[in-house]
């Protein structure tokens, strides 16, 4: 009996062993089969997924810490085609919160989606207020519109411009395609956008892994002063109304380091509604005329001619000449702005009365080689390198160019026949205000990334004239501004400057009736803190820069003095003594 029991036990054990062995063999076979490899591969595929992480776009601040461009959340609203029950109910609910949908188009997209599509976006970049309203309708689930199953929401960042159209011509904008257009947004697009990172992210929480740090885009601090920018835009708009000008620009720069403090353009756009760009601007060059639109600046260029003449030793401030009212250059007669003869004049009087004949005399005395060499060193015809997108180089013809004629030597000396942007003229004039050194204009003060700030240093572009020439010419220009009758004066402050009234070429001939009125000035003369350029296009009240652009300069200078806390000259001198 006991033996029989033992045999049965052994038999059962053998059977169990055989079954176990069979299971093990089968396990090994399954594990090593080709199907197992495919199964494992599929499992691995569902454990992780590739995701692209877009960094938050860097913010843009003005120099006083006011946010000019930031990010805010917007809704992408769509329909999950796998679970949608009642597309018409969804569209009715969307219409109730003014999603601005094309009903027929959206319904067609839901009912006849492209193959393999499981999600259809019906609206994107929807502001939070509307998105939240629609989400509340879905959450309420009260059947008011029907079954809203399948309506889904996805929050994502979008660009926001709290100041709307303020400084729009400097900032530029970002499209829905995350690309920057114009101004800072385009020039620094790569820095602001940051680098998107694609990484394998575990979906299975058991596979917790390090999520790579995606640094935000670089934040930029501009040299722009928000309050000064707002003041410049207000003054420009009022001036256009007052003088009946078609368009205009006011640019303000620190001539000692090239920091742009404000650039006002008349045509501005709310950057939050960038899609209106096409209806506001006819050409891309209209977006920021101070850097993109070259024009014949007229008499403001005389300061460069005089600088060249003084620096080359052709004349001194006391040099006199007899103004007969005309001069023949290259077979053409050049006359003064009033067609009159001004008799004996020294160089200060020459500038003060803005005499074309005097300037043509200087340029011809210097000779084309010397004159154009100076103009080239001042940067005319070259890009300034300003860190704003869309800069134009203008045009300065040189002897040897097919379209250069000897008469150009005469007309170029008083700013006709040469095209330059306001920013180019400011850069050139900065040599006079800044002891002979030109500064490169720039709009970015600093860059901030990962908590570190890099301050952009001032860049000097060259020294076209000596310090002595610069000081001498500044004094001469200060005398011009302080002369009786000048509308560019600001009481208590000694400023240097020059008006410009330029004829406008139309189809190869100069317009007899319309002019471009300009003024460039800076101050205080002994320690310049600002340089202001005013350009009014086709003013109707008066064609003369001295009667239109000059008073606008004075108004802008007074506002600048207040906002930059610049004390009057006598107070500053008292401070210096103490």
């Amino acid at each position: 009996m006991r033996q029989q029991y033992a045999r049965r036990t052994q038999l059962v054990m053998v059977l169990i062993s055989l079954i176990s062995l069979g299971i093990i063999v089968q396990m090994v076979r399954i594990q090593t089969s080709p199907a197992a490899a495919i199964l494992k591969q599929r499992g691995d595929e569902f454990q992780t997924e590739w995701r692209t992480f877009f960094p938050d776009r860097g913010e843009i601040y003005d120099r006083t810490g006011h946010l000019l461009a930031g990010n805010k959340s917007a809704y992408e609203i769509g329909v999950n085609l796998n679970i949608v029950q009642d597309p018409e109910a969804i569209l009715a609910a969307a219409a109730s919160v003014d999603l601005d949908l094309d009903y027929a188009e959206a319904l067609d997209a839901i009912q006849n989606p492209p193959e393999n599509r499981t999600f259809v976006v019906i609206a994107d970049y929807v502001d939070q207020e509307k998105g939240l309203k629609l989400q509340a309708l879905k959450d309420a689930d009260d059947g008011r519109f029907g079954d809203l199953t399948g309506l889904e929401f996805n929050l994502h960042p979008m660009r926001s411009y709290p100041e709307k159209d303020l400084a729009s011509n400097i900032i530029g904008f970002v499209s829905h395609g995350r690309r920057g257009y114009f101004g800072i947004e385009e020039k620094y697009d790569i820095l602001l956008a940051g680098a998107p990172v694609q990484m394998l992210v575990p979906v299975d929480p058991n596979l917790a892994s390090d999520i790579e740090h995606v640094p935000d885009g670089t934040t930029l601090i501009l040299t722009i002063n928000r309050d000064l920018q707002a003041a410049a835009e207000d003054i420009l708009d009022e001036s256009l109304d007052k003088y009946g000008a078609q368009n205009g620009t006011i640019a303000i720069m620190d001539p000692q380091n090239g920091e742009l403090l404000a650039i006002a353009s008349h045509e501005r756009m709310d950057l939050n509604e960038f899609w209106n760009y096409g209806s506001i601007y006819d050409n891309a060059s209209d977006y920021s005329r101070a850097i993109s639109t070259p024009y014949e600046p007229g008499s403001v260029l005389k300061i460069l001619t005089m600088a060249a003449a003084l620096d080359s030793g052709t004349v001194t401030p006391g040099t006199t000449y007899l103004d007969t009212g005309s001069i023949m250059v290259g077979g053409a007669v050049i006359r003064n702005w009033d067609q009159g003869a001004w008799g004996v004049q020294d160089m200060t009087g020459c500038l003060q009365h803005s005499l074309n004949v005097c300037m043509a005399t200087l340029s011809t005395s210097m000779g084309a080689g010397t004159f154009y060499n100076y103009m080239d060193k001042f940067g005319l015809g070259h890009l300034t390198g300003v860190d704003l997108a869309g800069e134009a180089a203008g045009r300065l013809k040189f002897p040897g160019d097919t379209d250069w004629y000897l008469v150009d030597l005469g007309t170029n000396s008083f700013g006709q026949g040469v095209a330059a942007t306001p920013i180019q003229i400011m850069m050139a004039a900065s040599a006079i205000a800044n002891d002979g050194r030109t500064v490169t204009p720039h709009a970015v003060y600093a860059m901030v990334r990962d908590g570190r700030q890099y301050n952009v240093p001032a860049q000097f572009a060259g020294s076209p004239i000596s310090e002595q020439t610069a000081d001498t010419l500044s004094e001469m220009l200060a005398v011009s501004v302080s002369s009786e009758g000048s509308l560019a004066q600001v009481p208590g402050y000694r400023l240097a400057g020059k008006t410009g009234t330029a004829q406008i070429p139309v189809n190869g001939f100069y317009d007899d009736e319309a002019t471009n009125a300009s003024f460039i000035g800076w101050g205080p003369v002994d320690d310049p803190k600002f340089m202001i350029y005013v350009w009014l296009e086709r003013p109707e009240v008066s064609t003369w820069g001295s009667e239109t652009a000059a008073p606008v300069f004075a108004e802008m200078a007074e506002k600048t003095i207040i906002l930059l806390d610049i004390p009057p000259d006598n107070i500053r001198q008292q401070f210096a003594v103490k």
Partner: protein
Amino acid sequence: MNIQNVNHLVHAYKVAPWRIQRQWIGAALLAVVALVMVATLYLDVTSQAAIAGREIQVLTAQIAEGQRISADLQTQLASLTSASVMEQRALDLGFRPMKSSDAEYLVVPGYYEPKPEILSSASRPQLSALTIPPEYNESLLDWVDEKIATSSRGRK
């Protein structure tokens, strides 16, 4: 112990073979218990790792949400304090634009003109990369392997 005693024990086992079987069963059970303990430990560690991983995902989402809300509020604040809004508020409160003749200047010893410095809001510390301790992503076998490797390195 003499030979007689040994023979007595051998005889006793021969007449009672269930004792040997019990020993085998005991050994097998011991092995099973050991395996169950190891499996339980492994399951515990794995489940803890999974919970921690899930928490990390939730926290990461919360951080992103916090940053999003912060950016929204910052933009909202900037809109409420924009130049045009502030100007209108000032006018409504009875202020008027200042003229240069209104300004009075005083000498303040030790005062220096303010320069743009690091903006606190712009230089907020960035979220540093998450560093997950190895306990959260290594398996028991990895841990054993690491320990063996560490001890062998220590002996060398």
